[in-house]
């Protein structure tokens, strides 16, 4: 029987191949696919029995998202920093580092970052705002800053 846990590098290699092909097919519009995937990521995590990501309190979301991503082995730590219409996520010990670095080496932006996709879906679902990824930049080895712009709904 196959082991319960998939090898991290193996998973990165598969995701890298898929996302590179997606980018080749639709170019910069691949980010739109990830935007659509975000709500499904939340739904699928919920189906795994991981709930509680339904608070309008950013600190609660930070704590719960951090707990679940650590439990799933997605990263070592994740923290939020809110400043007006900007929300910055600091991800430490990212398990998808090889994926995003591999894309970067090919000149492809890290559009497939699952933390960014989940974060956009999370704040849009809970905070009555729309969110947009401004940039994703490395903050050291296996660490990234994900910068979201929060767009307040009008009317």
């Amino acid at each position, binding site marked *: 029987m196959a082991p319960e846990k998939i090898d991290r590098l193996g998973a990165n290699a598969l995701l890298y191949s898929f996302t590179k092909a997606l980018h080749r*097919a639709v170019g910069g519009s691949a*980010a*739109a696919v990830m935007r659509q995937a975000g709500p499904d990521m939340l739904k699928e995590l919920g189906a795994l029995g991981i709930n509680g990501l339904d608070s309008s309190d950013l600190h609660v979301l930070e704590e719960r998202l951090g707990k679940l991503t650590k439990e799933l082995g997605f990263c070592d730590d994740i923290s939020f920093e809110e400043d007006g219409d900007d929300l910055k996520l600091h991800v430490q010990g990212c398990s998808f580092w090889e994926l995003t670095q591999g894309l970067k080496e090919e000149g492809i932006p890290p559009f497939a970052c699952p933390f960014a996709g989940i974060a956009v879906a999370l704040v849009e679902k809970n905070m009555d705002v729309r969110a947009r990824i401004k940039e994703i930049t490395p903050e050291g080895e296996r660490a990234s800053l994900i910068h979201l712009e929060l767009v307040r709904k009008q009317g």
Partner: protein
Amino acid sequence: MASTKDILTALTSVDGISSAVCVGRDGFVIDASAAPGADVDAIGAMVSTGLGSAESVGKELGVGGLTQAMMEYKNGVIVMTAIGVDAILAVVAAESSSLGNVRMQVKKRKRDLEAIL
């Protein structure tokens, strides 16, 4: 200066055009003038990937950058064009519309949107 909403509303006031959507390459809907009940977020993603796919075809076939894309369906026509490098304008028109006029309106409003985005 006209707002994005003004420009999109002007487009949907053209005979035959029912929806006009301006989206970012990331699928983020910047603004829309659409019939009530339309899922503009889903439309945004489809418009972005549709135009991206058309651009990739042009790249693979070596025919240069895309200026405008038009897709004809059984009950309507969709015309899309890039607004700068980060945004896209898409309009939905009835299949009975004057396609020349729809394309001309899109071309005209593209310049207006490029000036403000």
